[in-house]
C-alpha cells in the first residue's frame, strides 16, 4: 500500500473538519467537526506507526481517544448549560464577552 493513502485521507478529513468548525452555527455540530479533526490525527498516528514499524503511534492514538472523550463530555456539559440559560445554542449569539 502506498504511504500517502492514509495521509491523504487524514488530510481530507482534517480539511472537512476545519470547514465544519467555521461554517456551523449549532454548537453540537461544531463538536462533531472537532471529532472529525481528532480522528484524522488518529489515522495519521496509526499510519506513522505502521510505516516506522513501531507501536508508539498506537499509544498516542489511544491518548488522543481518551482526551477526545473527556473533551466531548465537558463540551456537551457546557452546551447544556448555555442552552439552559439562553434557550439557544447558536454560537453567533454568544457575544456577551465582546468588548
Amino acid at each position, binding site marked *: 500500500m502506498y504511504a500517502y493513502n492514509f495521509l491523504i485521507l487524514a488530510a481530507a478529513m482534517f480539511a472537512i473538519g476545519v470547514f465544519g468548525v467555521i461554517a456551523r452555527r449549532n454548537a453540537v455540530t461544531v463538536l462533531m467537526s472537532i471529532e472529525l479533526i481528532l480522528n484524522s490525527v488518529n489515522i495519521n498516528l496509526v499510519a506513522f506507526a505502521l510505516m516506522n514499524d513501531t507501536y508508539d503511534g498506537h499509544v498516542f492514538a489511544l491518548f488522543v481517544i481518551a482526551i477526545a472523550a473527556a473533551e466531548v463530555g*465537558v463540551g456537551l456539559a457546557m452546551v447544556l448549560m448555555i442552552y439552559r440559560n439562553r434557550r439557544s445554542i447558536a454560537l453567533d449569539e454568544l457575544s456577551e464577552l465582546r468588548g
Partner: protein
Amino acid sequence: MSAVVSTGSITLLAADVNVAQNVGFWVIAVPMLWGALRVVTARNVVHAALWLVIVLGGAAAQYILAAAEFVAVSQIMVYIGAVMVLFLFGIMLTRAQVGREDGLNNAGWAIGIPVGLLVFGVLAFAVFDAVGTDLIDDRAGDDKVLVSTTAISDAYLGPYLIPLIALSFVLLVAAIGAIVLARKD
C-alpha cells in the same frame, strides 16, 4: 508481468503494490469522506450524528487495515459506544423540534470553503513532498515489530507511565467538571 491501471494520481494496480489492501483502503475511504462531508453539510442534526457513525466506523476499519487492532476496538467502544450516545443526548436535550432545521450554518459559512480547500492543498502538497510514492512495507519478516496488545500495555506501564497517570487525572477532572457544569442548582 506488470499491469498498471492508473486513474489520475491514484494507482490501484501495479506490480509492487498489495492490490487487495489498496482497493480495500479506497472502498473504506470513499464512504468515510462522503460521510464526513455529510456531517458538515446535513440539514438535520440527528442525520449529521448518524453520518458521523459511518466516519468513526470507517476509521476503525482503517485501523484494522493498518494492523492496529487494539486501537480499532477502543475506537468502536469509546466513539461509537459512548461518544455517539453522548452526542444524541446532547441533541435531544438542546432541541425542541426533530427534523429539518434551517439556520444550522453561520451567515458567513462560505468562507469555510476556501479555508478548507487551502488547508487540504497545503497538507496534500506536504504529504506528496514528504513521502511521494513510497510504499509501506507490508511483507512479513524477522525484523518486523509485532504490535500486540501486550506491547502496548508494556509501553503504557513503562515509558509512558507518567503521561498515563496524568491522563487519568485529566479524565477525573473532566468527569467532575462535566457534573459541576451540567448540575441544576
